[in-house]
């Protein structure tokens, strides 16, 4: 079943076309990766899917519901979560509180009972705390629950952002370069985390430059080039697509297969 459907999407910034007439469909339950060189329009696409930018033309529908023109908080309400390429951490809050913000839509709140701290509010708060702790444990961050967020390493913060997104109980999570800036161990952990997220039934939309990770974790891959679709298919189809190989590696290919080059996880552009 199709979860996310994008048709004829177009976005330009002052004459520069960032996304040109893009179509794709994300089936429910898959890990769907979007790859392409820097400037191919991946983050612009994410920003449109999450309501930060409004597309010039085209439609975006989630579960058959039109999403174009909705503000980000309304899109979040329909089950879309995302993480950011440049971390967006609430540094003025602890790790637990950051993830509790992710529970925002799941907490039932009545201002009177909150202000007076009635038992109802206390119970709801305890429930939310448990959801947040579960999300942190799921991302392997159990030991950081009570840490302030401004004392943590980059890798931990990346996973905390994911925990925060998962605390929303989304139907789809959009991850913008989750492995960027991570070392090999952290990247391996990220790979297994993405797998676990997918196994828990959440559809994953992934933008990532680490081809090794993309090829290992994805069910389907969309290749963007200058804002339009260069190829789409299973990882195998993409790895053997001559156009993709040409765009990525030029004519000078090692063995013609992306991502199996030794250590060549980050391609140069």
């Amino acid at each position, binding site marked *: 079943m199709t979860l996310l459907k994008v048709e004829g999407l177009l976005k330009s910034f002052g004459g520069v076309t960032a996304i040109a007439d893009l179509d794709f469909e994300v089936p429910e339950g898959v890990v769907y990766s979007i790859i392409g060189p820097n400037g191919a329009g991946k983050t612009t696409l994410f920003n449109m899917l999450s309501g930060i930018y409004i597309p010039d033309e085209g439609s975006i529908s989630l579960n058959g519901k039109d999403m174009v023109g909705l503000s*980000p908080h309304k899109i*979040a309400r329909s089950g879309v979560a995302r993480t950011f390429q440049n971390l967006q951490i609430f540094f003025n809050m602890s790790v637990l509180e950051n993830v509790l*913000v992710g529970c925002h839509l799941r907490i039932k709140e009545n201002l009177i009972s909150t202000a007076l*701290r009635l038992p109802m509010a206390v119970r709801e708060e305890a429930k939310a705390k448990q959801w947040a702790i579960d999300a942190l444990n799921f991302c392997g961050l159990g030991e950081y629950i009570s840490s302030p967020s401004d004392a943590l*390493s980059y890798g931990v913060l990346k996973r905390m952002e994911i925990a925060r997104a998962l605390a929303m109980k989304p139907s789809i999570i959009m991850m913008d370069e989750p492995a960027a800036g991570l070392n090999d161990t952290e990247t391996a952990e990220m790979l297994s985390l993405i797998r676990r997220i997918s196994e828990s039934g959440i559809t994953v939309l992934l933008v990532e430059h680490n081809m090794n990770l993309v090829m290992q974790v994805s069910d389907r891959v969309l290749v963007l080039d200058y804002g339009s679709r260069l190829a789409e298919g299973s990882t195998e189809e993409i790895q053997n697509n001559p156009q993709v190989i040409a765009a990525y590696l030029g004519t000078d290919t090692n063995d013609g297969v992306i991502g199996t080059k030794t250590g060549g996880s980050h391609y140069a552009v």
Partner: protein
Amino acid sequence: MKRIKGLIILAIILIALPILFPNNYFITVVGTAVALHAVLAISLNLLMGYAGQISLGHAAFFGIGAYSSAILTTQHQWNPLLSIGAGMLITGIIAFVIARPILKLKGHYLAMATLGFGIIVSIILVQAGNFTGGPDGLSDIPPLALFGWTISSDFHWYVVMSTVLLLIVWLVNNLIDSRSGRALRALHGSEVAAEMMGINTTSVKTNVFVLSALIASFVGSLFAHQQAFISPDSFSFFFSIELVTMVVLGGLASTYGAIFGALVLTFLPELLVVFEDYEVMVFGGILMLMMIFMPQGLFVALENLISRLYRNYFNPPLPVPASDGENHDVA
């Protein structure tokens, strides 16, 4: 638990002071002013410290509350309690109307817009002489009466203001540690991430702006009934700056810090009468030095120092949290 502890300590201090120093001018008169300023600073801190939206016009809401009460009770013979409610209603409507356009602005632009609003209100207070009495202000404002008990003496007012302070501290701390409070603070941390968590940032900003204006209006009305005389001087741009200084001095995003800031800045002019004409300069100087040397605020800095000393004295130092420090600047 920490929340309750702070509140209990504050309550004990507020009760103990007049018992230890009965009929002391510094307790009943200055203490009442400290409590009033503290409530104002806490309300401004909600907006500035927690939600990260600066306001240089907070005195305007304080003034609207005070003048609403004064005008309704002196010129229309309203019941003081009713006039407090009416003042809050008027303030709430004004705050709601200006919130949306104003809070679309960020940083310096927001500061300018709130500054402009504050100046407009204080000009109206001076110029609309028919209602406000112009620069001479309004006098003969009736005292407040609660259930047949007329609040008249300085000590009565000390009790009322202390109770209001405790109540506001309790409510604000409950709020800060809830879903709405986290939404507020998330706004400060990252607006785009807050939106992506499903927080309607526009309405959260509007709500906190209105809430902080309502609190200011409420204590403005109390102020009018306490003083029995008000003039535009009390609600000028300089008072807004003083409130900002209190918040920054105590420490942004710290309720007890705001109280501490109010305490210091209310006592300073009392103790240093020589500064009278240079008060604003002294406040400006404090603000500058704070920003440079203690951006997290005096109260928070002291709190950290005490807890560090306490830890070193009673326990071995804790290991540094696992943070390799590398890759930290990639973001």
